[in-house]
Protein backbone atom coordinates (compact mmCIF):
# COMPACT_ATOMS: atom_id res chain seq x y z
CA UNK A 1 0.00 0.00 0.00
CA UNK A 2 1.18 3.50 -0.72
CA UNK A 3 -0.26 4.81 2.52
CA UNK A 4 -2.58 7.29 0.73
CA UNK A 5 -6.19 7.37 1.96
CA UNK A 6 -9.21 7.68 -0.27
CA UNK A 7 -10.96 11.08 -0.09
CA UNK A 8 -13.63 11.22 2.61
CA UNK A 9 -12.33 8.18 4.52
CA UNK A 10 -12.09 10.18 7.74
CA UNK A 11 -15.83 11.01 7.56
CA UNK A 12 -16.93 7.44 6.92
CA UNK A 13 -18.18 6.84 10.47
CA UNK A 14 -19.78 10.27 10.94
CA UNK A 15 -23.47 10.42 11.79
CA UNK A 16 -25.59 12.76 9.72
CA UNK A 17 -28.01 13.18 6.85
CA UNK A 18 -27.64 11.02 3.80
CA UNK A 19 -26.78 13.30 0.92
CA UNK A 20 -28.70 12.69 -2.25
CA UNK A 21 -26.40 12.00 -5.15
CA UNK A 22 -26.90 12.37 -8.87
CA UNK A 23 -30.12 13.32 -10.60
CA UNK A 24 -32.21 10.34 -9.47
CA UNK A 25 -35.78 10.58 -8.28
CA UNK A 26 -35.96 12.32 -4.88
CA UNK A 27 -38.04 10.74 -2.14
CA UNK A 28 -40.79 13.29 -2.81
CA UNK A 29 -41.34 11.71 -6.24
CA UNK A 30 -40.76 12.52 -9.89
CA UNK A 31 -43.69 14.96 -9.99
CA UNK A 32 -42.03 17.33 -7.51
CA UNK A 33 -40.29 20.06 -9.56
CA UNK A 34 -38.27 21.51 -6.64
CA UNK A 35 -34.48 21.41 -6.75
CA UNK A 36 -34.22 19.67 -10.06
CA UNK A 37 -31.50 19.87 -12.65
CA UNK A 38 -32.48 20.11 -16.32
CA UNK A 39 -32.45 16.31 -16.74
CA UNK A 40 -34.83 15.79 -13.81
CA UNK A 41 -37.13 18.57 -15.01
CA UNK A 42 -37.18 17.09 -18.53
CA UNK A 43 -38.00 13.67 -17.06
CA UNK A 44 -40.89 15.05 -14.97
CA UNK A 45 -42.39 16.95 -17.93
CA UNK A 46 -41.95 13.83 -20.08
CA UNK A 47 -44.00 11.86 -17.55
CA UNK A 48 -46.74 14.51 -17.34
CA UNK A 49 -47.03 14.78 -21.14
CA UNK A 50 -46.99 10.95 -21.39
CA UNK A 51 -49.88 10.62 -18.94
CA UNK A 52 -51.74 13.38 -20.81
CA UNK A 53 -51.24 11.55 -24.11
CA UNK A 54 -52.53 8.27 -22.64
CA UNK A 55 -55.64 10.13 -21.45
CA UNK A 56 -55.97 11.63 -24.94
CA UNK A 57 -55.68 8.17 -26.55
CA UNK A 58 -58.87 7.06 -24.78
CA UNK A 59 -60.59 10.41 -25.39
CA UNK A 60 -59.72 10.07 -29.08
CA UNK A 61 -61.18 6.55 -29.22
CA UNK A 62 -64.33 7.82 -27.50
CA UNK A 63 -64.66 10.68 -29.99
CA UNK A 64 -64.08 8.38 -32.98
CA UNK A 65 -66.82 6.10 -31.62
CA UNK A 66 -69.28 8.85 -32.68
CA UNK A 67 -68.57 7.79 -36.26
CA UNK A 68 -70.28 4.48 -35.48
CA UNK A 69 -73.52 6.43 -34.85
CA UNK A 70 -73.51 7.92 -38.31
CA UNK A 71 -73.00 11.20 -40.11
CA UNK A 72 -75.31 13.38 -38.00
CA UNK A 73 -73.51 12.54 -34.74
CA UNK A 74 -70.17 13.30 -36.37
CA UNK A 75 -71.42 16.61 -37.81
CA UNK A 76 -72.52 17.66 -34.32
CA UNK A 77 -69.08 16.92 -32.99
CA UNK A 78 -67.42 18.84 -35.84
CA UNK A 79 -69.32 22.00 -34.85
CA UNK A 80 -67.85 21.72 -31.35
CA UNK A 81 -64.38 20.66 -32.57
CA UNK A 82 -63.97 23.68 -34.81
CA UNK A 83 -64.57 26.18 -32.00
CA UNK A 84 -61.69 28.42 -30.90
CA UNK A 85 -61.42 26.69 -27.50
CA UNK A 86 -61.25 23.22 -29.02
CA UNK A 87 -58.61 24.29 -31.55
CA UNK A 88 -56.57 25.69 -28.63
CA UNK A 89 -56.73 22.27 -27.00
CA UNK A 90 -55.42 20.86 -30.30
CA UNK A 91 -52.40 23.17 -30.00
CA UNK A 92 -51.89 21.96 -26.40
CA UNK A 93 -52.08 18.38 -27.66
CA UNK A 94 -49.45 19.09 -30.32
CA UNK A 95 -47.22 20.61 -27.64
CA UNK A 96 -47.53 17.37 -25.64
CA UNK A 97 -46.78 15.22 -28.69
CA UNK A 98 -43.80 17.33 -29.71
CA UNK A 99 -42.32 17.51 -26.21
CA UNK A 100 -42.78 13.81 -25.51
CA UNK A 101 -41.55 12.77 -28.95
CA UNK A 102 -38.52 15.04 -29.14
CA UNK A 103 -37.53 14.36 -25.53
CA UNK A 104 -37.92 10.66 -26.34
CA UNK A 105 -35.38 11.06 -29.14
CA UNK A 106 -33.01 12.72 -26.65
CA UNK A 107 -33.50 9.95 -24.09
CA UNK A 108 -32.95 7.26 -26.75
CA UNK A 109 -29.77 8.92 -28.02
CA UNK A 110 -28.39 9.50 -24.52
CA UNK A 111 -29.54 6.13 -23.14
CA UNK A 112 -28.08 4.16 -26.02
CA UNK A 113 -24.74 5.95 -25.58
CA UNK A 114 -24.74 7.60 -29.01
CA UNK A 115 -24.48 11.11 -27.52
CA UNK A 116 -24.18 10.30 -23.82
CA UNK A 117 -22.38 13.56 -22.92
CA UNK A 118 -24.48 16.03 -24.92
CA UNK A 119 -27.87 15.76 -23.27
CA UNK A 120 -28.22 19.45 -22.37
CA UNK A 121 -27.24 20.65 -25.83
CA UNK A 122 -29.60 18.10 -27.32
CA UNK A 123 -32.46 19.28 -25.08
CA UNK A 124 -32.02 22.88 -26.23
CA UNK A 125 -31.56 21.96 -29.91
CA UNK A 126 -34.66 19.77 -29.94
CA UNK A 127 -36.45 22.47 -27.95
CA UNK A 128 -35.84 24.95 -30.78
CA UNK A 129 -37.06 22.44 -33.38
CA UNK A 130 -40.13 21.70 -31.24
CA UNK A 131 -40.94 25.39 -30.77
CA UNK A 132 -40.74 26.02 -34.52
CA UNK A 133 -42.92 22.97 -35.25
CA UNK A 134 -45.44 24.09 -32.62
CA UNK A 135 -45.56 27.61 -34.07
CA UNK A 136 -46.10 26.18 -37.58
CA UNK A 137 -48.88 23.89 -36.31
CA UNK A 138 -50.58 26.69 -34.36
CA UNK A 139 -50.53 28.97 -37.41
CA UNK A 140 -51.97 26.15 -39.53
CA UNK A 141 -54.69 25.31 -37.02
CA UNK A 142 -55.80 28.87 -36.22
CA UNK A 143 -55.30 29.91 -39.86
CA UNK A 144 -57.81 27.29 -40.99
CA UNK A 145 -60.67 29.20 -39.27
Amino acid at each position, binding site marked *: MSGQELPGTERRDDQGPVLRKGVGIPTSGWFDPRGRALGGFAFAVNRVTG*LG*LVAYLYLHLAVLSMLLRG*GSAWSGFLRL*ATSWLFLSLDVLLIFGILYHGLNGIRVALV*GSGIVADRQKALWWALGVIGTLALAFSAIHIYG*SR
Partner: protein
Amino acid sequence: MATIRTRGTARRRSARAPRSAGEWRITTLTGLGLLVLLAVHMVANHFVVKSIGGLRDYRQVLAYIANPVIFTIESLFLLFVTVHAMLGLRSVLLDLDPSPRLHRWIDRGLAVLGLVTLAYGYFLIGTLASRA
Protein backbone atom coordinates in the same frame (compact mmCIF):
# COMPACT_ATOMS: atom_id res chain seq x y z
CA MET B 1 -24.08 -12.47 17.93
CA ALA B 2 -25.55 -9.01 18.08
CA THR B 3 -28.18 -7.96 15.59
CA ILE B 4 -27.83 -4.45 14.30
CA ARG B 5 -31.07 -2.72 13.32
CA THR B 6 -30.24 -0.28 10.59
CA ARG B 7 -32.35 2.59 9.31
CA GLY B 8 -32.94 0.68 6.08
CA THR B 9 -34.77 -2.17 7.81
CA ALA B 10 -36.97 0.10 9.89
CA ARG B 11 -39.42 0.47 7.04
CA ARG B 12 -39.56 -2.64 4.95
CA ARG B 13 -39.85 -1.85 1.27
CA SER B 14 -40.33 -4.17 -1.63
CA ALA B 15 -37.33 -4.74 -3.82
CA ARG B 16 -38.01 -2.71 -6.93
CA ALA B 17 -37.40 -4.69 -10.06
CA PRO B 18 -35.17 -2.67 -12.34
CA ARG B 19 -36.49 -1.82 -15.75
CA SER B 20 -35.17 -4.53 -18.02
CA ALA B 21 -33.09 -3.82 -21.11
CA GLY B 22 -35.71 -5.59 -23.22
CA GLU B 23 -38.48 -3.35 -21.89
CA TRP B 24 -36.38 -0.22 -22.52
CA ARG B 25 -35.67 -1.43 -26.05
CA ILE B 26 -39.36 -2.07 -26.82
CA THR B 27 -40.36 1.32 -25.40
CA THR B 28 -37.66 3.05 -27.47
CA LEU B 29 -38.42 1.16 -30.68
CA THR B 30 -42.17 1.70 -30.43
CA GLY B 31 -41.45 5.35 -29.60
CA LEU B 32 -39.28 5.78 -32.69
CA GLY B 33 -41.88 3.95 -34.79
CA LEU B 34 -44.55 6.26 -33.39
CA LEU B 35 -42.61 9.34 -34.45
CA VAL B 36 -42.80 8.18 -38.06
CA LEU B 37 -46.37 6.87 -37.88
CA LEU B 38 -47.63 9.90 -35.98
CA ALA B 39 -46.05 12.27 -38.48
CA VAL B 40 -47.78 10.39 -41.32
CA HIS B 41 -51.04 10.28 -39.32
CA MET B 42 -51.00 14.02 -38.58
CA VAL B 43 -50.06 15.10 -42.10
CA ALA B 44 -52.34 12.64 -43.95
CA ASN B 45 -55.26 13.05 -41.54
CA HIS B 46 -55.20 16.73 -40.61
CA PHE B 47 -52.73 18.84 -42.55
CA VAL B 48 -53.78 18.06 -46.13
CA VAL B 49 -57.51 18.65 -45.56
CA LYS B 50 -58.78 22.11 -46.43
CA SER B 51 -61.24 22.58 -43.57
CA ILE B 52 -61.29 24.13 -40.10
CA GLY B 53 -58.80 22.30 -37.89
CA GLY B 54 -58.13 19.85 -40.73
CA LEU B 55 -61.15 17.77 -39.72
CA ARG B 56 -62.88 15.55 -42.30
CA ASP B 57 -66.63 15.12 -42.63
CA TYR B 58 -68.25 11.71 -42.21
CA ARG B 59 -67.96 10.61 -45.85
CA GLN B 60 -64.35 11.81 -46.06
CA VAL B 61 -63.41 9.86 -42.91
CA LEU B 62 -64.88 6.63 -44.31
CA ALA B 63 -63.11 7.08 -47.65
CA TYR B 64 -59.86 7.89 -45.84
CA ILE B 65 -59.86 4.82 -43.59
CA ALA B 66 -60.91 2.51 -46.44
CA ASN B 67 -57.70 3.31 -48.34
CA PRO B 68 -55.53 0.16 -47.89
CA VAL B 69 -52.33 2.14 -47.27
CA ILE B 70 -54.00 4.36 -44.66
CA PHE B 71 -55.74 1.33 -43.11
CA THR B 72 -52.35 -0.38 -42.67
CA ILE B 73 -50.69 2.75 -41.28
CA GLU B 74 -53.53 3.39 -38.81
CA SER B 75 -53.51 -0.28 -37.72
CA LEU B 76 -49.78 -0.16 -37.06
CA PHE B 77 -50.19 3.18 -35.33
CA LEU B 78 -52.78 1.72 -32.96
CA LEU B 79 -50.52 -1.23 -32.14
CA PHE B 80 -47.43 0.90 -31.50
CA VAL B 81 -49.25 3.56 -29.49
CA THR B 82 -50.97 0.98 -27.27
CA VAL B 83 -47.78 -0.96 -26.51
CA HIS B 84 -45.87 2.26 -25.85
CA ALA B 85 -48.65 3.66 -23.64
CA MET B 86 -48.96 0.48 -21.54
CA LEU B 87 -45.19 0.28 -21.00
CA GLY B 88 -45.13 3.97 -20.08
CA LEU B 89 -48.01 3.55 -17.61
CA ARG B 90 -46.26 0.53 -16.11
CA SER B 91 -43.12 2.54 -15.64
CA VAL B 92 -45.00 5.32 -13.84
CA LEU B 93 -46.87 2.86 -11.62
CA LEU B 94 -43.72 0.87 -10.74
CA ASP B 95 -42.05 4.11 -9.65
CA LEU B 96 -44.61 4.18 -6.84
CA ASP B 97 -42.74 1.13 -5.49
CA PRO B 98 -45.64 -1.35 -5.23
CA SER B 99 -45.44 -4.61 -3.31
CA PRO B 100 -44.61 -7.72 -5.40
CA ARG B 101 -48.29 -8.76 -5.28
CA LEU B 102 -49.48 -5.37 -6.51
CA HIS B 103 -46.70 -5.43 -9.09
CA ARG B 104 -48.19 -8.63 -10.55
CA TRP B 105 -51.68 -7.09 -10.61
CA ILE B 106 -50.34 -4.01 -12.38
CA ASP B 107 -48.76 -6.22 -15.06
CA ARG B 108 -51.96 -8.23 -15.51
CA GLY B 109 -54.20 -5.15 -15.46
CA LEU B 110 -52.14 -3.32 -18.07
CA ALA B 111 -51.98 -6.43 -20.29
CA VAL B 112 -55.79 -6.67 -20.18
CA LEU B 113 -56.23 -2.92 -20.74
CA GLY B 114 -53.85 -3.06 -23.71
CA LEU B 115 -55.67 -6.01 -25.28
CA VAL B 116 -59.08 -4.38 -24.77
CA THR B 117 -57.77 -1.15 -26.30
CA LEU B 118 -56.41 -3.00 -29.33
CA ALA B 119 -59.58 -5.04 -29.74
CA TYR B 120 -61.84 -1.96 -29.62
CA GLY B 121 -59.51 0.07 -31.84
CA TYR B 122 -59.39 -2.62 -34.53
CA PHE B 123 -63.16 -3.09 -34.28
CA LEU B 124 -63.57 0.67 -34.84
CA ILE B 125 -61.16 0.84 -37.79
CA GLY B 126 -62.58 -2.32 -39.38
CA THR B 127 -66.21 -1.23 -38.99
CA LEU B 128 -65.58 2.21 -40.45
CA ALA B 129 -63.55 0.83 -43.36
CA SER B 130 -66.35 -1.64 -44.16
CA ARG B 131 -68.91 1.22 -44.35
CA ALA B 132 -67.09 3.11 -47.09
